[in-house]
């Protein structure tokens, strides 16, 4: 771990003023691990874990969640369980109880990929060292992307929470070092790798996530399901967040996000287009799944994820149209 300055921010404004040269520290569950390996080498850590950002407020615009709220607290909040059950399920399917107690909402969004080539400093990784290459392309890539990857990077984003946030059309509120604020749709917070996989997201240097706002009236039917090799404490092979309403027997306000398939939580807008306004049926669900995965490309070890993703989409839509809300695998 490279020696670094440690600053404890008293306010969000303080934090962004101090943060330009460093990294923000929330729960530290990913950042500190990466610092030990000197994959992350900040000169300064700005501790934002003690900011008064652990509040959850309900208002007309929706549920406003402080970036410092722990994953456990958010998952267990009565309003989250009632109104955004897919978010609660997604959070609880991530990591372990100990990690969820420590991990924050802001930090969860910004956790980095689990690509093993990113973690091994002796291997080529464009995300870690731009221009060095990608050893995952012809390497062990069972966990890698099937959608939206580039020849520079086939890593996937590991978060469950971010997949749920993308499906719920949550909004991320930020504060920039110049004091200005902006709102970013959660589905647009992360980016595809393209030629610059070193950038996971669209935040600028020193820009701090302060809140996440969940819409006041999300679809009534919600569902999150995570496919994993180990029944707990395992990253998703593929995961899915689905929400829709049934209005007069027809699907309305549908949103679907997939996890474990891309460099970002993958909003399945092609599937959504097929579904919106349709009557639930096995044929429709299959058509939606086919439409979304038509552009999927396997990397070798992960070819099965294409078929698996289709099956998962169909199963999730089936269960949700039958009124099942969540599933404990």
């Amino acid at each position, binding site marked *: *771990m*490279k*020696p670094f300055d440690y600053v404890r921010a008293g306010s969000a404004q303080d934090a962004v003023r101090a943060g330009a040269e460093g990294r923000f520290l929330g729960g530290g569950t990913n950042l500190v691990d990466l610092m*030990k*390996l*000197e994959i992350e080498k900040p000169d300064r850590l700005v501790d934002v874990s003690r900011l008064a950002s652990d509040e959850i407020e309900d208002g007309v615009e929706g549920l406003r969640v402080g970036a410092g709220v722990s994953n456990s607290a958010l998952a267990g909040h009565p309003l989250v369980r009632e109104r955004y059950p897919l978010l609660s399920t997604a959070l609880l399917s991530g990591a372990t109880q100990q990690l969820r107690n420590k991990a924050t909402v802001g930090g969860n969004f910004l956790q980095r990929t*689990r690509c*093993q*080539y990113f*973690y*091994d*400093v*002796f*291997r080529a990784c464009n995300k870690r060292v731009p221009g060095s290459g990608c*050893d995952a392309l*012809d*390497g*062990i890539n069972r966990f890698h992307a099937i959608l939206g990857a580039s020849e520079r990077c086939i890593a996937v984003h590991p978060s469950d929470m971010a997949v749920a946030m993308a499906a719920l059309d949550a909004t991320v509120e930020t504060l920039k070092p110049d004091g200005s604020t902006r709102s970013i749709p959660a589905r647009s917070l992360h980016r595809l790798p393209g030629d610059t996989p070193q950038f996971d997201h669209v935040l600028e240097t020193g820009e701090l996530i302060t809140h996440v706002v969940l819409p006041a009236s999300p679809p009534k039917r919600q569902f999150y399901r995570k*496919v*994993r*090799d*180990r*029944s*707990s*404490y*395992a*990253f998703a*092979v593929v995961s899915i967040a689905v929400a829709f309403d049934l209005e007069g027997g027809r699907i309305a306000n549908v949103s679907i996000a997939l996890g474990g398939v891309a460099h970002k939580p993958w909003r399945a807008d092609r599937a959504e287009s097929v579904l919106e306004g349709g009557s639930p049926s096995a044929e429709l669900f299959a058509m939606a799944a086919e439409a979304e995965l038509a552009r999927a490309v396997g990397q070798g070890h992960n070819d*099965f994820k294409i*078929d*698996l993703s289709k*099956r*998962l989409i*169909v*199963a999730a839509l089936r269960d949700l149209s039958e009124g099942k809300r969540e599933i404990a*695998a």
Partner: protein
Amino acid sequence: MNQQDSRNWIGKPLDRVDGPAKVTGQATYAADYRGARAASIGFIVEAGIGKGRISSIDTTAAEASDGVLLVLSHKNAPEQAPFGSHKDAGRFGQSHAALENDRVKYHGAPVAFVVAETLEQARHAAHLIEVKYDIEAGVFDAEAHEEDAVRPDSLDGADEADKETGNFEKTFDKAPVTVEAEYHTPAQHASAMEPHATVAEWSEGKLTVHMAIQILSDARKGLAHTLKMEPGDVRIVSPFIGGGFGSKLGIHNEAVLAALAARELDRPVRVAQTRRNLFSNGPHRTEHRQRLKLGADTDGRLLAISHDSLAAMARGYPFAEAAGGLTQSSYAALAIRMRHRIVEADIPKVDSMRAPGEAIGTLTFESAIDELAERCGVDPVQFRLLNEPETEPGSGKPFSTRPLARCLSEGAASFGWRSGPVRPGGKRDGRWLVGHGVAAAIRSNNIEPAGAEASLSRDGRLTLKLDMTDIGTGTYTILGQIAAEALGMQAGMIEVRLGDSDFAETCGSGGSFGAGSTGTAVHEACQNIRADILSRAARIDAGWSGVNSGELRLDGDRVSVGDRSLPLGDILDAVGGETFHCKAHIKAGDAHETMAQYSYGALFAEVGVDTDTAEIRLRRLLGVFDAGRILNRKTAHSQLMGGMIFGIGAALLEESLMDKRYGAFMNRDLAEYHIAVNRDVPRLEVHMLDGFDRHSNPLGSKGIGELGICGAGPAIANAVYDATGHRARKFPVHIEDVLPAVSRLVG
């Protein structure tokens, strides 16, 4: 506990005597040790290539970094005996020299060692070291270099690498029903909770090492040979070990480097390997390709068995796993053949991991047996019963005991086994495909030479001192039980002291031989104490003459027989001496040569396979075991359960993934290397038969630590087949392996 009870300590489900110390943090594991002088902290710098030569190494920046006390590399490392010398001391006792030259032998091998005041300082300085390499092509994959395969000189757990009873080819050719299958089992790391850790300190040319180690006497030899010292000048201390599973049988790089640096610095050095370190600086079970050929007649009687294994051996480190070793002991057949081949490879140390041989051997063999039973149209439990041998098929030796049939029958009844031939894909429970599977477990029973030292004080307290280890198995507790029963005294009056090479040399922990071997030595030492008390008592009171020493009872500070009673202190005062002090030394009896000795089990599994996602989840696992006499029903139960959980990992979870372009293990943490978590472990049922093997040792016990893992994996794999129709050919079984079968069944 009353007098009557105190005669029957063995078998009681006593709580672990070290339990309170462990759960309150009072148990000092190796890295917890704090001596009089503050230790400096070492950190291993790993090679970033699989094979080659260090062309340059620049340690200047590291040496100048804050807090750094010493940087060792091959350029300045003190002289050691060449790696692998002292071969006759065995692989644990041979030289384990580190940083001995500019060669990189495997990915992650130490290229430097940094010692600093704090861990953070050492770790950061490690990153400042610049190493350049001349990379050479390495061998990382046995199968890709099969043309270089040779027969190993020795095989762990079997006498010969190749063995054939009868004529396999001829018999197999005539068999009307056959199975031919090729299996791949993965590399695995033991992943004990406690990493390999060492604190080394020197005093007047003598070395004391606090370390996590299973066998102290071997570690002492290994360090002494490496450092060119006399074994008597090395003391090893290891009172508590946070899991071994074979990975702590021998010493590893951190121990050698800590000892070297502590001598250079004249200051204690502490090193705990990081979890990532363990994947290259600790040992592993290597990948195996196993080929099974089985032939039977149409009634389900086995005719021919062939079991071939191909694996890598770490270059210069003689260990090969006997994957096919158990085949000659399992079932009756006219012809049985096993062949083992190895390819020397440039990979980290390959060594024992829990149940070497049987763990991966039963995984494939018992899967193939299930397949053959199906082809014969015979129920798989019945198939195994049909093929029970009279004597050990490969050797013709009589079995000391052979309770496998009883394990199978009782297991089938407890589990609710629905007999009949396997018909996969027939059972549904909601969205789950449900399957049942069975497999037999077999694990060789060994006794190793062991000593013991016991002393009884005038106030009736017994102290045992052994260099034995308790790797979490319950050794402290069972040795006390054995001594209490042997002397007819209260267990609470006994202090068991373990894990110090100054104590009596034992076999240590490994190969499931610890309890039986050391337990017998303790039993013998206590018998000697009885004889000593009696002979001394007879010198002061003629009434004790002619008494059988077995009738003596200890009650507090008095010894009694019939209506005679004497304070121990009076005997000591009369004949001189402060304590009754006796030693014992035991070795395996002839019955270990003349008879085939194994412990046995039958495992029954129920799995569910998700019809949407092909996720496999174990629903229940039941084992019926016979390991001779059970020494403590609680710790034995835990050991068997732990073994079964290892079996879950073997079937469904555990694999160390190597990128074979580089010889580098890639999933080097516990988020990526999947050991079973609580949710993967549903209802586990452990049944123990009340066996007693009089040929094994005077206690009647047999090895138990590795038995549970054998058979658990294949029972699960066979259940997956029953659920889906997918026959596992590689392990662990993943979603993508069963997805096509699930798709065929349910669309």
